[in-house]
């Protein structure tokens, strides 16, 4: 049966329970710290690998003009950039990893995080036709409705626009970086 509810008992019991719980949490936190860091590093590395041409040497994270980016080099020559680019989608921020070759053409894209509607905008991570068009995309970076060359996801123009905007921001950024280098 439950113990008596005297003040001493209650304080003692709550303190002990809190202490034990904090100890458990502390231990679990310490144990999982490394695996969590590893898991997120692995996810990032995978997405970078996906959007850059194979065989390049990938740099550490760098920052400029508010973009996080990684540079892939082959024999000292810059081949491509992987740029983390965020825009405003339908349900919230849409964050992409965009691979752009040094000449400013898109190599490939992948979605890092999004909060689009399942079954509609969320198709930007599963719709084969939409995703594959970015591989080596050439043409105007606007959805067809706005006079460009991007095939939008059916019934998800806002998501497609946001996606296109994120890609085009990344391309602009790379062009700026390359331009600054040549000056």
């Amino acid at each position: 049966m439950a113990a008596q509810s005297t003040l001493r008992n209650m304080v003692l019991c709550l303190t002990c329970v809190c202490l034990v719980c904090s100890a458990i949490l502390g231990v679990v936190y310490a144990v999982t710290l490394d695996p969590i860091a590893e898991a997120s590093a692995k996810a990032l590395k995978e997405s970078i690998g996906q959007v850059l041409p194979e065989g390049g040497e990938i740099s550490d994270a760098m920052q400029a003009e508010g973009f996080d980016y990684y540079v892939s080099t082959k024999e000292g020559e810059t081949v491509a950039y992987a740029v983390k680019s965020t825009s405003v989608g339908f349900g919230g921020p849409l964050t992409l990893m965009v691979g752009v070759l040094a000449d400013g053409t898109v190599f490939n894209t992948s979605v890092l995080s999004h909060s689009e509607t399942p079954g509609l905008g969320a198709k930007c991570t599963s719709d084969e036709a939409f995703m594959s068009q970015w591989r080596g995309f050439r043409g105007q970076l606007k959805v067809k409705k706005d006079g460009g060359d991007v095939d939008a996801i059916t019934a998800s123009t806002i998501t497609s626009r946001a996606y296109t905007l994120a890609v085009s921001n990344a391309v602009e950024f790379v062009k700026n970086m390359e331009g600054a280098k040549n000056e």
Partner: protein
Amino acid sequence: MEFLLIIISAIFVNNILLSQFLGICPFLGVSNKLSTATGMSGAVCFVITLSTVVTYLINQYLLVPCGLEFLQTIAFILVIAALVQVVEIVLKKISPSLYQALGIFLPLITTNCAVLGVAITVVTKQFTFGGTAHMLNLGEATVYALATSLGYGLSMILFAGIREHLAGNDVPKAFKGLPIALITASIMAMAFLGFSGMV
């Protein structure tokens, strides 16, 4: 302008009950009568706004500087539970009439996931009001919490109004009670889908 966007988005577009599914238990449990639904909504409004402000400050000035973000869940639920108790005691002292109206709902609110849900959302999610993705500041968080809880009240009261009418109708036996209420909620949720894309 930005505050207006937050308010419209939180009340209509991302209605906490009908599109985020937070706080469904009281939504189904105490929506039989309009009067109890109104009382519950009032209490929820009060507690969500207050607890969001308190948990936001605790997170900002205690957990983040100490690197203890992983304690968010446990810290927030304790703060909310304590806050509900305090509100109950204070209300009893200073406004017995308000206590009469809201009092019986207060103990239920600790386990209403809308309260913890909003508190966690505000400190972990990036929002896109005003064009760029960013974390909410204290002012925006307060407005967001207040608007979200108003949205809670709106759908709760609308739903209770419909259910009062349903009670007098002759529905098939297997549909009586919750099933027909859920199907009603489904139609309401469909209506609220019409707001999506507005903000």
